[in-house]
């Protein structure tokens, strides 16, 4: 799978204007984009599971997994089936980021931003593949990708998710004892299948107006927030979001 690495996205991760005029930085971005393509060993997998709402959380049938917390419950409120996906760029990308950390911090930042852009692009493609499958089965839509660490869905389930998918064996993706995915440019996510059309989440959209818009607005990504943050339980109080950093949702 060839990953499209969008320059505008890279600049966004670098907290930089998309019209950046700096020959050095721009050529470093070009070089990094070309170089990373040779290092990416994009591997992914996903699997469909029926779910069941129980007292302890959302039980993923046929597995040991129970998804706990209010935010995932809300996320999957219209779903009776989910897809669990995992994707990684592989370990060579990590090694190269480390390499540039020693050679040039500027390059390492840029390389890191390229890698984040690439894994997001990869996930977009996987999501599109899942969506195609879901629609072909006669469903209406899918939810967005929901990852451990979003809202109150703890990253403690990272290892269990990987185990359910057999991700360590199949794509070489593991989690450390601190539940950091390794290789680091990796994602696990839960996507809900929406069988029938439901009402839009108008109540949530209203909330965005209450937003403290004055803070760090230039660093923030409102489009991203609309897609990923607004349904989050701690949306209003999120310090990270105000800093324009975001939680596990972004690289």
């Amino acid at each position: 799978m060839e990953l499209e690495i969008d320059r505008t996205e890279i600049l966004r991760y670098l907290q930089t204007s998309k019209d950046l005029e700096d020959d050095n930085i721009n050529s470093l971005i070009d070089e990094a984009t070309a170089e990373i393509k040779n290092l990416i060993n994009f591997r992914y997998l996903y699997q469909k599971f029926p779910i069941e709402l129980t007292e302890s959380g959302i039980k993923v049938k046929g597995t040991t997994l129970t998804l706990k917390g209010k935010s995932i419950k809300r996320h999957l409120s219209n779903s009776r089936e989910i897809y669990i996906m995992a994707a990684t760029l592989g370990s060579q990308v990590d090694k190269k980021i480390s390499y540039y950390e020693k050679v040039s911090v500027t390059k390492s930042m840029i390389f890191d931003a390229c890698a984040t852009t690439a894994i997001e692009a990869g996930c977009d493609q996987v999501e599109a593949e899942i969506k195609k499958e879901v629609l072909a089965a006669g469903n209406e839509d899918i939810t967005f990708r929901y990852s451990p660490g979003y809202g109150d869905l703890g990253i403690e389930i990272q290892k269990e998710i990987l185990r359910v998918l057999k991700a360590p064996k199949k794509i070489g993706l593991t989690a450390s004892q601190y539940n950091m995915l390794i290789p680091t440019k990796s994602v696990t996510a839960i996507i809900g299948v929406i069988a029938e059309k439901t009402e839009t989440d108008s109540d949530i959209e209203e909330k965005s107006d209450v937003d403290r818009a004055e803070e760090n607005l230039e660093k923030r990504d409102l489009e991203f927030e609309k897609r990923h943050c607004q349904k989050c339980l701690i949306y209003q109080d999120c310090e990270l979001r105000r800093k324009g950093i975001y939680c596990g949702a972004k690289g």
Partner: protein
Amino acid sequence: MELRDKLGNEIILFDGAMGTVLQQRGLKAGDVPEKLNIEKREEIIEIHKSYLKSGAEILTTNTFGANALKMKEIDYSVEEVIAAAVENARQAVIESKIEAAVALDMGPLGELLEPMGSLSFDEAYSLYQQQVLVGVEAGADLIHIETIADLNEARAAVLAAKENSNLPVFCTLTFEEEGRTFTGSSIRSMISVLEGLGIDGIGLNCSLGPEKLEPLVEEVLQYSKLPVILQANAGLPVVENEETVFKISPAEYFKPLARLYEKGLAVIGGCCGTNEEFISLIAENLKNKKVKKREVISESLACSPSQYVNLAGVNVVGERINPTGKAAFKEALRNGDLDYILKVAVDEVDAGADILDVNLGLPEIDEKKVMVKLIKELQGILDIPLQIDSSNTEVIEDALRYYNGTAIVNSVNGEPEVLEKTLPAVKKYGAAVIGLTMDDDGIPTTAEGRFEIAAKIVSRAAEHGISRDKIIIDCLTLTASAQQEGVRETLKAVKMVKEKLGVKTTLGVSNVSFGLPARPVLNRSFLAMALYQGLNLPIIDPNDVEMMAAVKAAAVLNNIDQGAAQYIEYMSELENESEPEKNKENLNEEIDLQTVIIRGLKSESARLTKTILKEKEALEVVNEYLIPALDLVGERYEKGDIFLPQLVQSAETVKEAFSVLKEEMARTGGRDLSKGKIVMATVKGDVHDIGKNIVKTVLENYGYQIIDLGRNVNIREVVNAVVENEIRLLGLSALMTTTVKNMEKTIKAVRDKAPECQIMVGGAVLTTDYAEMIDADYYARDAKEAVEIAKKVFVE
């Protein structure tokens, strides 16, 4: 027949899958199969029995993940699970009355080792050691290490098996179709490293079906002297009706196995998706058949997991990682500034070195500790094989233990005491070794004398089980100005040891010209002569383009570089490299340092600083050029005229200027420019480092000396660095909510031992409140705030 006798002579049959069979019987995805050893004994025994009936001669215990990390998730201990698993296999043997060996199965730990992950080699070793000890106690007949993707993890497991048991050890890695594991290990490196560690059987398992793995197994059969093992999957799994199924039939599965049997495969079994039908079919056709004889290409490598060098060729060993005669290098070593050394290494690799010699012989440092740390750091960013250069046996032993690959040891000599002390470690870790042709009586003057010592080294090594293809003889370069007649003796000796002993050769080259004018000419000429005599490993400065060119040219003229391909490639790369430099010079001849900093022109920065240094003192350069430029850049960033990457780029440009100033200081012994020492670390568990590195670079710009402990740093290491260096300011970074806990613990430990040290923290998940909660003195939002904090602390 005993397993060891049969191994390699007659086909040995393993059983098939356990995990996928258990899943078919209803084990949930994500569940821990090892607990069934206790909870569903009968079922496990039944599966074992079905494999025995189908012809398996080795039963694999249901202990793939039975390590302490994974067993945390269930109610049973490693001891209970493994004891029960071995017992179950034994019980199956007893009940079926079919003889079979019981293999203690050890799979990957589930977490990646450093430098990729946060698990240390020692932790990995201990986890495997525990499994081995319990397995031996429970009566396993062999140890089977399988489905490993990281060669270093395989090394930890094999060492744990070898050091804690006398059982035969099998090890199989799991490869992708392209012939690499997920972490990038190649087949050849696997062979070199695992054969070196003295395992009994080697091969592949899992990942793909036998047909896809066939070419990879062929490569193992071609290059490994060991009995070769294959346990393939039943093809690729497909999901049907929400269930994972493997679709190839036993007959299809067997076809490639039959071909591989003809090529010399010795041990066969099944992995995911296989069952007793697969094993039955293999047994019907191959059981007890003689293993086919095969031709093995014998080669001796120096390697990392992903890159190898065949020692029989001509390869350049970079000599720059060595403090001898280098003031700045010594200074960096004393300050624990490994980044300086890493840059030296990167330059050598970029210049075309094939192997890097690593020498840290400086009396005032803890050579062993620094060597181990440097090796880890080097392997974290580079793939080039390393040559461990030390006269201290303990340093060599530790370096070999932690080096992930097959290293070269530099060196032993003809002194019996040195040989006896060093060769056991060389053998144990499968390293290659350099033998210097000298002994207690010094360097013999004649070629014959040196040959004699070389012969002695070869025979002593043989007594330790080290074959001569692992031996590299250094006939020692003498100085032409002092011992002119000796130069020819060296060259003569090179040819003699090469032809008569069949060993490889190495020489340090630049000694030859000492004390004479135009040294490069002599060095090049000597190098060319030595290469003609059969020199394999010239130890030179790869940044010396003329010397590198001489090596490439000699390879053409000696008919080694076929069609001059490598020569042409090297020369064209040289041309390409010199072009961008020209472009920069065209920009503007009169460009000043401030503009250079603002525009982030790193290479210009060093050049201009050197020019200015001719007229100004280092401190003047800092105050009159660097600080004003930095302030300007900072201002522009604040205003939003430039962005973060540009700020960092400028900071790095200033850093270049600083390193010129530092070298000048080290050279002249001038006044220290440092405004204060700050220790910085990314806490245990975090493997992201970029934020901390940005802050570090900017702090350095403002004249602070940073002791950078890197990432994933143990609490103890932080405390030690703070105490040893009497640190007044410590900077810690953490990026995840899960690792902030380690930040808190680190702060507590530092407070205990060094209450006067102030602590600033930063990182994505931190806030002012959070910083206060974990008892930090300061929260630094960004690099600029960190500078303000430093100013405050060091004024007090």
